[in-house]
């Protein structure tokens, strides 16, 4: 507990002081100037909404796909070869995954050249925009590749541990249709057991750095990219603005995490009481 909290708290306090100009060698004392300018520019809120949308879409698609795979291919996934293929992305760091995506999907990338060679495109430049693009398709694609295998693994385990198969068989013998079994037995059981993890993954993706750095646009940017950009900027007098963004972000995420866990405790308590 102490090992986790002390460095985190001191970093937070340092950022807080920096954001008010109390520390930092180019700063000269307390000011709310940096907070005002960050709140006025609206860039933070745009970045926040943008990041949240990307993280939400990525988590939803990953969870959806993983559930489908886990329920549809339960037997096959327990076989060695296939599970290896599915779990391989788990071992790939974010930077590498982002470069993969870039090499494969950029306008001068593998698929673009392939389509050009096959005569589908007149010019390599006509290849659809999926890297550094407006809708963050590249980022979402890479997030899904990196995150989905974890969910497959998770759901397979829950499937086994919660004996979903037995429950399904029981429901079937009681006359439930296959669709009813999926929607009313398997899915609710599996989601109830995993939703905190799903929410945590959302927060994790919200703060992702390398993948949006390589595959994102210059504006709007995802939160971590924005924070690092502000902190490393040339204008030393504005470095504090980066700390303002970091403080707001940390505050929101911590609040979300606290809510999440206190609710979970209550929920488990109710179940136990019942």
């Amino acid at each position, binding site marked *: 507990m102490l090992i986790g909290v002390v460095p985190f708290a001191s970093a937070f306090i340092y950022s807080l002081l920096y954001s008010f100009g109390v*520390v930092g060698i*180019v700063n000269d004392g307390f000011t709310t100037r940096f907070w005002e300018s960050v709140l006025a520019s609206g860039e933070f809120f745009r970045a926040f909404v943008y990041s949240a949308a990307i993280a939400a879409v990525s988590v939803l698609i990953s969870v959806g796909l993983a559930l489908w795979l886990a329920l549809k291919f339960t037997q096959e996934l327990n076989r060695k070869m296939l599970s290896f293929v599915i779990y391989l992305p788990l071992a790939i760091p974010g930077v590498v995954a982002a470069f993969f995506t870039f090499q494969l999907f950029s306008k*001068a990338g593998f698929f673009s050249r392939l389509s050009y060679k096959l005569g589908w495109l007149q010019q390599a430049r006509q290849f659809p925009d999926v890297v550094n693009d*407006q809708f963050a398709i590249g980022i979402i694609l890479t997030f899904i590749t990196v995150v989905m295998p974890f969910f497959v693994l998770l759901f397979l385990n829950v499937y086994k541990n919660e004996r979903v198969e037995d429950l399904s068989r029981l429901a079937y013998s009681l006359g439930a249709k296959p669709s009813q079994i999926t929607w009313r037995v398997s899915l609710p059981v599996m989601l109830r057991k995993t939703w905190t993890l799903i929410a945590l993954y959302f927060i994790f993706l919200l703060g992702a750095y390398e993948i949006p750095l390589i595959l994102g*646009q210059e504006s709007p940017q995802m939160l971590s990219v924005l924070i690092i950009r502000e902190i490393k900027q040339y*204008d*030393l007098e504005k470095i504090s603005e980066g700390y303002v963004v970091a403080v707001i972000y940390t505050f929101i995420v911590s609040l979300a995490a606290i809510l999440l866990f206190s609710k979970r405790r209550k929920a488990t308590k109710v179940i136990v009481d019942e």
Partner: protein
Amino acid sequence: MACKPTSSDSTFDPTDASWETIEEKAQGTTVNFMMWQGNPPLNDYINNFLVPTLKDRYGITMKITGGQGPEIVQLVMGEKQAGIENGQVDIVWINGETFFQLRKIDGLWGPFVKQLPNSQYINFDNPFINTDFQQPVNYMEAPWGMGQFALVYDSAKIPDPPRNLKELETYVKANPGTFTLSNDFSGMTLLKSFLAEIGGSPTSLDGDFDEAKYERLSAQLWDYLNRNKKYFWKEGSTFPKEHTKMSQMFATGELQLVYGFSEGGIEDKIEEGLYPKTARAYAWDNGTILNSNYLGIPYNSGNKAGAMVAINFLISPEAQYKKQIHNGREARTVLEINRLPAEWKEKFENAPKPSYSPDSEKLAKKAIQEPAPEYMIRLYEDFRTEVIEK
């Protein structure tokens, strides 16, 4: 002592010491050199020539760490905030922007350059050496390399590349999607050339930062870019974060008009096989920026004597000559050839000429000075708010 050579003499202040004493103190120490490691031929020069030679001749162990511009400033700022007396780094490779920032936080130690024996070969009356982004260098940093910014095109694809803003407008309309600006140091350097052209002459941005002039000229520049960005790469909806990415896109043909420091930097890229042999570099009609890059010593270096000896070697005729001929990197030395001993003068004069880069003397006829650092800072900010976010 033996296991911590750098700290052995961290209290020694070489300010008034004789060169013999400094060399003596440097013997057997470790010098930490923080530099940008993005150039393979230069890394090769450092690892296979500089490091072993320093060890042989001066008993100095040189350790290289990666880092440039903002990272260097962050490090020195962090150490200053933490009150660290014996810093991690003894030499930093910087140019005007970082120099400006480091001076602002009193992050550099000096002046030290006059004490280096090899500084006699440097012409400090040359404005491209004694002035870094319109700031007097005052011997606080030693020049190490010099290069002119140039535009790069493939002569096999574009017979007649644009040489001014008007021609650029015509060019992007005819070849949409093949030009862009990187949102980094290189991109801003090109914008400075554009700004100078709008100002009407190669010297229009010289002197101290002028807010009114900046406002007037930059408004026209943003208007120009916003008017034409729909013909840029990705219809101007975004811009590449880094210049290195543009080099790759030039190599794949996605972009057809790019730019770079060091006479466009095409020599080693062609030799590496990244750029086609038909790639050529040229200057803007109104001129492109010529600047020097420098070596400085952080205020809290634990081994100032070692740093001085190493820098003195880096600006020696021998090391500069090696650097010049090494893989065609950087056509220009910071030394004044006429001041060199006859033997070296001859060597420099007969040095192999680059095979693809433009003649640096000719290019230098269209050289402009780096404007004051505030121009860069403002261009960075305003390029984001006025162009990228619009």
